[in-house]
């Protein structure tokens, strides 16, 4: 028996396939992103309040926990969600990435300990306490909130970065870079982080969602956005009491958050896909 290992047809870059892969992610993430972007312009003026958690009555998606129109809140509520959670995640990585990489790349045990042990301490402190304290002493502000959410995420992210980087940091390529006198930044971020970009993308993708709901919790405690702010995550959190009477107030923003999460992650997946290579490998066996 014989096997043909060459394709009959010539092969080309599979741009169309890759494009389709991106398309799905873009379509899913597009809805929430578009609403976030354009919603505030479409929202229109604020109408009179109604009874909280009612359906109908001129409100297409009913009313929320303080009797406002859910549809309007949904249209208004995307920007802060996207902005704060993205900023917070980016901020967390901005700190965690150098920390994790430094810990992975250093040879000095003491340096590694000084970098990671304090983070471990932070890791073991209930974030509830942190949130409460900040709520008590820190004047509410969106920037502060993003910083706080980032802070809660840093120890975690740094550990994942460190674990993912350990293998790459010990490769001969890194030794070669060092022998070239390459800068730390280029070695760490340009090479080590680059080689674990998939892990980073996967972690950041889900961390984004975590950040989102932390924003809502914080809002409830009085940090950052107002507790009745138009913000999808806050809406999901605050409208939960009406879940049984007026599910839309939870379901619609939650769906948008889900779409955002799923879409962004699918985009990440498509961006870091290796399938292209393997497609080729398999096609090689087709006649």
């Amino acid at each position, binding site marked *: *028996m014989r096997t043909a*290992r*060459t394709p009959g047809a010539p092969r080309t*870059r599979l741009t169309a396939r890759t494009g389709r892969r991106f398309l799905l992610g873009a379509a899913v993430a597009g809805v929430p992103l578009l609403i976030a972007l354009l919603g505030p312009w479409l929202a229109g003026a604020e109408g009179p309040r109604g009874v909280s958690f009612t359906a109908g009555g001129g409100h297409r998606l009913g009313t929320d926990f303080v009797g406002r129109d859910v549809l309007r809140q949904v249209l208004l509520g995307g920007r802060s969600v996207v902005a704060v959670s993205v900023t917070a995640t980016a901020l967390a990585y901005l700190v965690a990435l150098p920390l994790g990489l430094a810990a992975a790349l250093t040879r000095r045990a003491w340096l590694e300990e000084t970098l990671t042990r304090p983070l471990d301490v932070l890791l073991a402190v209930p974030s509830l306490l942190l949130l409460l304290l900040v709520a008590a002493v820190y004047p509410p502000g969106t920037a502060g909130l993003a910083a706080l959410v980032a802070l809660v995420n840093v120890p975690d992210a740094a550990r994942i970065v460190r674990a993912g980087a350990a293998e790459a940091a010990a490769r001969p390529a890194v030794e070669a*870079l060092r022998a070239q*006198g390459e800068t730390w930044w280029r070695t760490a971020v340009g*090479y080590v982080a680059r080689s674990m970009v998939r892990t980073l993308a996967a972690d950041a993708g889900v961390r984004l969602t975590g950040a989102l709901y932390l924003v809502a919790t914080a809002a409830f405690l009085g940090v950052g956005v107002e507790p009745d702010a138009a913000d999808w995550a806050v809406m999901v959190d605050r409208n939960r009491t009406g879940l049984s009477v007026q599910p839309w107030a939870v379901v619609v923003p939650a769906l948008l958050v889900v779409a955002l999460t799923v879409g962004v992650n699918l985009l990440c997946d498509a961006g870091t896909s290796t399938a292209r290579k393997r497609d080729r490998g398999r096609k090689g066996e087709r006649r």
Partner: protein
Amino acid sequence: MRSPKRADAETGTEGGARADAVAEIRDLRVEIGGRAVVDGVGLTVRPGRVTALVGASGSGKTTTGLALLGEYPDGARVTGDVWVAEGPVGYVPQHPASVLNPARRVGALLTDIARTGTADLPRRARRAAGRARVLAALEAARLPDGAEVLTRYPHQLSGGQQQRVVLAQALLLGARTVVADEPTTGLDALTRRRVAGELAAVARRGVAVLLLSHDLDLVRDLADEVLVMRAGRVVESGPAEELWLRPRHPWTRELLGGPGGTADGGQERGRPRTPAVPAPGPVTAPLPVTVPLPVAVPLPAPDPAPAPARDTVEGPAPVLEARAVTARHRGTPALLRDASLSVRAGECLAVVGRSGGGKTTLARCLAGLHSRYEGQVLLDGAPLPRSLRRRDRAQLAAVQYVFQDARAAFDAYRPVLDQVARTAVRLRGVRPGAAEEEAVAALGRVGLSEGTARRRPGGLSGGELQRAALVRALLARPRVLICDEVTSGLDSVTRRGVLRLLADLAREPAGPALVLITHDLDTAALADRIAVLDAGAIVEQGPAAEALTAPRHPFTRALTGSPGAHGPR
């Protein structure tokens, strides 16, 4: 895919023609970015026979070999037919480290491969039988201490040991076809001879071997049929003896003319060579023959006059000196014991020894990549920091190391040229633009075009990458250049060119002193002095000619073999 139905149909139509072949390539053309890397190649692999592909570095050997495995480079357009008999194909890649799983012990995959062969045994016997098979394969691959090797991680093996592990995998597989891509580059002469013997034995058992190699000794010892490749085309093919005795194509003649080409290579060296033949067709592949080096000039023979003089007191002080270096790895006994050596400016020191003898470890100690050692490494008499992280730029630039595994030492995601040029930027403060120009020029001198260098490492052949790695180190204008097997992946022509370049550089006033770690005794013969390393100890050190022609230590004698020992058969 491998559906029997379709296979039958194929056998029905074309099977007759290949009745005795286990694999066949017909009119294969692999085109990347409009350039044919392999063009119109055809070959037949038959059971029990060794088919050798030889040719210049970058001529498409690996690409052709991988085609038998159904693998092609990224973004390639492939036409032609490749047929392989049902069943796995053994593969010994050019860079063995890449196929060794960094997270698993060496034994893991070997055991799994062995398991496929013990499925019919009773459950209880399987384990023992598998282990016995693994150990036998390691033995056949000339890895002594197999049981111990199984428990190691790949990074705990020397380059040659890794190569033999991969070879053992192929032997263990029991495939009908084995593609061996440079299977002996990392092996010392002694081991190589034995491995060659094993490959011959494998072929005798009816396995078809496709051997891709620069090692003409090996090819001559093993091959039944030889195909000579150049710039993606097969320029000449035929039974080995015939080709060896009556090479028709000028390129073949040139290729065979190098050191090691024949036992009496020494006489051939002086023979004037046919001028370079322009590459056929639109192929722009840089050919070694275009290297702007005085190809016809004899290789720098060891200069007998100055060498002894340097050993005397009035010679220049050593640039780099290792004093009583005893190195160990985590949790191992000392691998390098009390090794002392030194190189002077303009001098070339060859370090030879058995695979796994500690050569790389020594070089890494010098280069600051291995800091678990006692003893001292001195640069111009001043101690060098153990770890290169503590070396300043001048010290980094002064001692440069070219890695044994060129592929592993490059960042797979950035163009080679960028990576090469960074040395000049970082260590000599050259502007990026100028550094790139300098890099392009230097790469040109070793036969790498700018177009090639602009690709990522994955787009370069093994030998091309090796040369790029060399240039990367050279751009630092080092005082001492430590080359760990930098010519193992080069064909004889290119190798000569590269060595010449190094010799020229060394001779320049500010040129680097060379530490050449090599298994190739011909290459070693070019050095001023030779240090022989056996099991972590330097057993002999002295002028090259002396050490090679009149070895004092029994180990050196064994390594060099009796005069003319390169051709066992």
